[in-house]
């Protein structure tokens, strides 16, 4: 009996010893919070996609270095499962479906409305939240989605603060033309521009629509020279913005004010245009010199410094927006005291939080609140991007009126 008991005891001990690593692994896995998604690391959207990806990765790295995050008394380490979608919506859809099948509960967005839109449809069906810093098209937020949250206001609401800025200019511009490219974001952004500008009392001269990929804009610019507006407002992605600006300079196409929603934020854009970039206006959602308080990074400046220590790629506002997605997620989980996707979704919907990116508050449809998360107006001055509106966040004096291309220094 004693022998049997001893054998049983030894077997039990051996079994327990064998099981320990497995139990330990299971425990470690249970304490990992996985965020899944696809991101364009190659293809046409890769330039900004890399910035968003770096924002996600920087926030996760920092939080893990601090020992992880405490949710309802349990410590979690964060883990990213992000795959390159090559800027291809169909590839992104396949990747997201695979992550859903792998029981990933929390999703981060890709970059580009054309990718966010179909991938959000999948996460929505699976009732898994997606927080994203890459899709601003209205369609993402007007189709009844409950689980998708965006770090920007929907495209048609992104121009309201810029119109308010234009109304402060003296001498006052009166007329405007719009040039947009034929893609999901740019078209809706342009529609918002026209609506808000006309609502602000400005007169529309022409509304041009170009193909998604521009190789030549000379015809449109000939028309702009023939019917010159006070303001030329461009809704297109970075590469197209640079092409258009270059062609404007190289054909002597002068307007009183050139606004390009995307492009001038990038150092590569400003370097390519040199002194000619001076005075060009753009939207900016973030500046490291602002004084927001962040629950993890303390301030935008501290985030920028940490990012610079661990990355060689220059920081851009999409980096901060990506990091804010992680901060917002984690804070919502803490508020929900749960990692249940439905409860986290409800906490996300109720978020009203100060982060390194600014105040994060979503509308009932999930896009960023147009007042709290709307853009500031930036202007290229002496080769750098500066905030010129609103006055409270101004980092440099406005250059107005803007000199003609050949008078810029």
């Amino acid at each position, binding site marked *: 009996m004693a022998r049997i008991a001893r054998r049983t005891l030894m077997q039990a001990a051996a079994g327990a010893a064998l099981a320990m690593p497995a139990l330990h692994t299971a425990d470690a896995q249970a304490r990992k919070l996985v965020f899944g998604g696809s991101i364009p690391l190659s293809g046409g959207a890769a*330039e900004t996609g890399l910035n968003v990806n770096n924002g996600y990765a920087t926030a996760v790295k920092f939080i893990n270095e601090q020992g992880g995050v405490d949710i309802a008394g349990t410590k979690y380490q964060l883990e990213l499962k992000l795959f390159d979608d090559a800027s291809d919506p169909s590839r992104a859809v396949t990747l997201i479906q695979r992550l859903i099948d792998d029981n990933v509960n929390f999703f981060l967005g890709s970059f580009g409305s054309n990718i966010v839109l179909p991938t959000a449809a999948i996460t929505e069906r699976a009732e898994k939240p997606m927080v994203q810093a890459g899709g601003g098209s209205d369609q993402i937020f007007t189709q009844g989605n409950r689980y998708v949250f965006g770090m920007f206001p929907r495209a048609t609401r992104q121009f309201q603060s810029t119109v308010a800025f234009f109304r402060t200019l003296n001498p006052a511009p009166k007329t405007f033309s719009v040039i947009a490219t034929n893609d999901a974001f740019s078209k809706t952004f342009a529609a918002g521009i026209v609506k808000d500008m006309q609502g602000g009392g400005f007169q529309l001269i022409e509304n041009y629509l170009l193909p998604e990929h521009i190789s030549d804009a000379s*015809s449109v610019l000939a028309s702009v020279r023939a019917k010159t507006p006070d303001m030329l407002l461009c809704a297109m992605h970075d590469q197209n913005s640079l092409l258009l600006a270059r062609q404007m300079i190289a054909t002597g196409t002068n307007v009183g004010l050139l606004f390009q929603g995307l492009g001038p934020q990038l150092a590569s854009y400003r370097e390519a245009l040199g002194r000619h970039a001076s005075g060009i206006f753009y939207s900016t959602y973030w500046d490291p010199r602002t004084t927001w308080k962040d629950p993890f990074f303390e301030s935008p400046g501290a985030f920028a410094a940490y990012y610079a220590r661990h990355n060689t790629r220059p920081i851009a506002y999409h980096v901060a927006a990506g990091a804010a997605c992680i901060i917002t997620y984690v804070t919502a989980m803490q508020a929900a005291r749960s990692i249940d996707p439905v409860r986290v979704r409800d906490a996300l919907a109720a978020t009203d939080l100060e982060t390194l990116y600014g105040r994060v508050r979503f509308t009932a449809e999930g896009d960023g609140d147009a007042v709290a998360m709307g853009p500031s107006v930036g202007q290229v001055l002496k080769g750098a991007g500066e905030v010129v509106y609103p006055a409270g966040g101004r980092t440099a004096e406005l250059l107005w009126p803007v000199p003609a291309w050949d008078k810029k220094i």
Partner: protein
Amino acid sequence: MLALQTILDGLVLGGLYALAAVGFSLIFGVLGVVNLSHGAIVMIGAYLTWFLWHSTGLDPLLCIPPVMLVLFAFGYVYQRGLIQLAVDRSSLLASMLVTFGVALMLRNLLVLVFSPDFKSISPGWAFSFLRLAGGVTIDLVRISALGASLALLGALAYVLNRTRIGRVIRATAQQELAARLCGVNARHVYAVTFGVSAAFAGASGAILGIVLPFAPPDEANWTLNAFVVVVLGGIGSPSGALLGGLLLGLISTATSQLIGPAFPNAMMFLILVLMLMVRPSGLLGNAFAGSR
């Protein structure tokens, strides 16, 4: 005056299309291979020029000869080492699939080496322009690009029509067996043709880089443009590429002006379909064996 500006813009754009397509046309005409990596080679030319200009400050137009030399060597090795193998062991269709795979690899290699960020080549004269009578303007970059394109196309036409190697290439393209019987090393000729095509693709990349910002994914557009130019103009000759390119440029700017700036691509493909139905050999179609 708007009409004159439109025609001028169309011709300038057409010159770029023509130069970018001539290499594609030559390979299709002589080897019968639809080179789907053509756009990627154009992009390599743009990146090499950017690298030389950025690191040495050399004027981008002066970068064209070294870029052509490097890409000639690349094209020669590419054809002898890969395309010829695919043709020998399987079929021309297999070689097309090989070029598609190579295009994907080259695109990702460019991303790895140069990052996915777009680049642009902006020499000191990039922002100068000429104002002609009646307010017609033309930028110096595009007019230089057109000039360089015409000069290079002229040089290629001279080589093909007036030199010994040109005669050998044409002879091999027309009757490979007869050329072999006359002692021509057809494999070497094919590789030289591929090298010349790659060199011209590289030159067009250098010029495009001065005119447009570029990124690795743009390669697909330049392959597609080359295909349309070749179908329009005819296969295998610089004059066909020039005619197709100029027509495409004019169609593009005229559509943009008369119908709407969003429609040049739609019109381009409509013309492509019509040409394939009505005159599949192109306006200056020839009887080169490879493309028959």
